């Protein structure tokens, strides 16, 4: 929901970044306020995924210019884990498998790390189980997934739901969903969208990085940004996504 009065969570100015010496982001500007839902669209190689990884602090990417502040703090002065603890969450496009580490152990460690960071009490396994049993309903996962190794043997859709479960447990201020919809069948898409919607509030915000309009039918964006050549070349409301669906990207690229 757009409310120009609400506080700014993320402010990115003229952000430039490269990977292996190749410049991918060539000056991105973006402001996200609490309560907003953003979608970033664009063709392959436009810089969408790079943008999310740079914000989250992936070590392969080097910031070469510009700035980003998260609730007023210089994002790039923080290590990846500090950004996470500050409330920045990235749902991965390709969630990794961690053999032998149970989902519940990982979730509890991540949750307790946050609690400690905020000066709050850690939860013991039993207390945490109460919490996670509630959260798992959000993504309609069978509780047996908690005892299984992280993502090991999960289907593509289960992995994506598992990402949203992590989001539900960690309650980030800003969640970036990097192509969370890719590889999801329509039922899984609906569950994921329902989960994300239930987590939205006037205190947090979501950025969906996606190729497709269909996710935006379920999670309705306040802003749609189109990325091309490492920049945001057009920003509009949800109608922009529909227009893209109908017309493709070429007309924007030509205009840019």
């Amino acid at each position, binding site marked *: 929901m757009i409310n120009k009065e609400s506080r700014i969570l993320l402010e990115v100015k003229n952000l430039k970044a490269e990977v292996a010496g190749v410049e991918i982001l060539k000056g991105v500007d973006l402001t996200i306020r609490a309560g907003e839902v953003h979608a970033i669209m664009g063709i392959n190689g436009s810089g969408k995924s790079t943008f999310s990884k740079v914000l989250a*602090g992936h070590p392969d990417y080097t910031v070469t210019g510009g700035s980003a502040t998260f609730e007023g703090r210089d994002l790039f002065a923080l290590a*990846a*884990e500090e950004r996470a603890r500050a409330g920045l969450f990235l749902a*991965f496009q390709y969630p*990794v498998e961690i*053999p032998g580490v149970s989902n519940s152990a990982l979730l509890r*460690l*991540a949750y307790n790390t946050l609690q400690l960071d905020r000066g709050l009490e850690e939860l013991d396994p039993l207390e945490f189980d109460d919490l996670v049993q509630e959260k798992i309903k959000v993504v309609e996962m069978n509780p047996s997934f908690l005892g299984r190794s992280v993502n090991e043997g999960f289907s593509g859709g289960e992995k994506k739901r598992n990402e949203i479960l*992590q989001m539900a447990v960690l309650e980030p201020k800003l969640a970036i969903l990097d192509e969370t919809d890719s590889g999801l069948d329509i039922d899984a898409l609906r569950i994921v969208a329902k989960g994300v919607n239930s987590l939205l509030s006037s205190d947090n915000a979501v950025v969906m990085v996606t190729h497709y309009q269909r996710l935006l039918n379920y999670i309705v964006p306040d802003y749609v940004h189109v990325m091309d050549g490492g920049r945001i070349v057009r920003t509009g409301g949800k109608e922009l996504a529909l227009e893209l669906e109908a017309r493709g990207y070429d007309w924007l690229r030509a205009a840019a």
Partner: protein
Amino acid sequence: MSAALQNLVNQPYKHGFVTDIETDSVPKGLSEDVIRHISKKKSEPEWLLEFRLSAYRHWLTMEEPVWANVSYPKIDFQDIIYFTQPKPKKQLASMDEVDPELRRTFEKLGVPLHEQKMMTGVAVDVIFDSVSVTTTYKAKLAEIGIIFCSFSEAVHEYPELVRQYLGSVVPSGDNYYAALNSAVFTDGSFCFIPKGTKCPMDLSTYFRINTEGSGQFERTLIIAEEGSSVCYLEGCTAPQFDTNQLHAAVVELVALDNADIKYSTVQNWYAGDENGKGGIFNFVTKRGLCKGVNSKISWTQVETGSAITWKYPSCVLLGDNSSGEFYSVALTNHLQQADTGTKMIHIGKNTRSKIISKGISAGRSSNSYRGLVKVGSRATGARNYSQCDSMLIGDRCAANTFPTIDVQNTTATIEHEASTSKIGEDQMFFFAQRGIGSEEAISMIINGFCKDVFVHLPMEFAVEATKLLGLKLEGSVG
């Protein structure tokens, strides 16, 4: 590999100090005279000297094994001190009389020599260089007929038992290093669990090599009589020297009918520095004989130290329905080399064996699993399950698996599974993105990987092993 990850594996070795203590050593070098000298120093009976000399003569005819996937400069066996002990001040009547310097050493290593200070429920035999310093809870165990003492003491107090079983599982000419050990072994632990007795506490030996240039050649013999059971733990450390030191031990286990032996090792010898200078050559022969029906021997090892590890704790499954287990975690970093695994020899009917091996390689190290599952023609209904998993950290290390399966009985069932995985930047970034720091992430990944093995370690050991792996890996993930 990123710098942050690099730094994480490279924690300095914590047990690398040297104890300044007066020692009594035989001069460097090996000859029949040296062996006679050692034997005389220990006032050994004639038969034992003969055992040594015949092993030595056999050893002279043998070639150093070269089949292992390790490389190292040729060992000069004349440049090793074969016997060195802290100068005895006088005969020890109790542990309180142990040289305070030695006591401090072991306290520093977390092995206090006072019974009341020890981990509850664990009796310890402490070996410093070539001799046993003290054995705790000896008297208490003796009340229920359990013998737990240094090997030297056993030779004098229980010569018939020693004579009956010494070399019965690992013959003196079994292999190059076993022969060398049989010729020059100095001390070790001896343990005898009488019929029907369940050992009420864990027995443990702590090995410490202190003197530069010395080798350690210990001998451990554990006998579990009919229906008895024992859980045995072994820990080891050594100071940090630039030169390599040889550790060539022999461990023999004998389990009679319905007996159960569980043997756990956390090996943390000095591994050499990050350029591969110094460190222990750990060339060890460990073998258990399931002699009786329904007997069971289980090896669990966590190998983190040593410049080179060459070690194959094995089970000979002679008794019908006997079973052998091998659970192993071997971690190598820097330039460490490990060639380790097991042999399961099925001879009796319905014998079972299980192998779970986890190899973790970091730095520029090399880590090989080598195993043999052999099913003899009489071993009807034999079963084996093997699982060998390797994990690579970084892209300059190597992992290999060399399984050999030799089946001569058509009723046998053999299963072998293997996997290789890699801790990559993506896994580390995932943990970081969930707010978890790299040390905790590595520890979680490694513990997850090793879970199937750690569950078989006694509680205190499992905790220690977990910490140890974390320390060893600081700095190496990427």
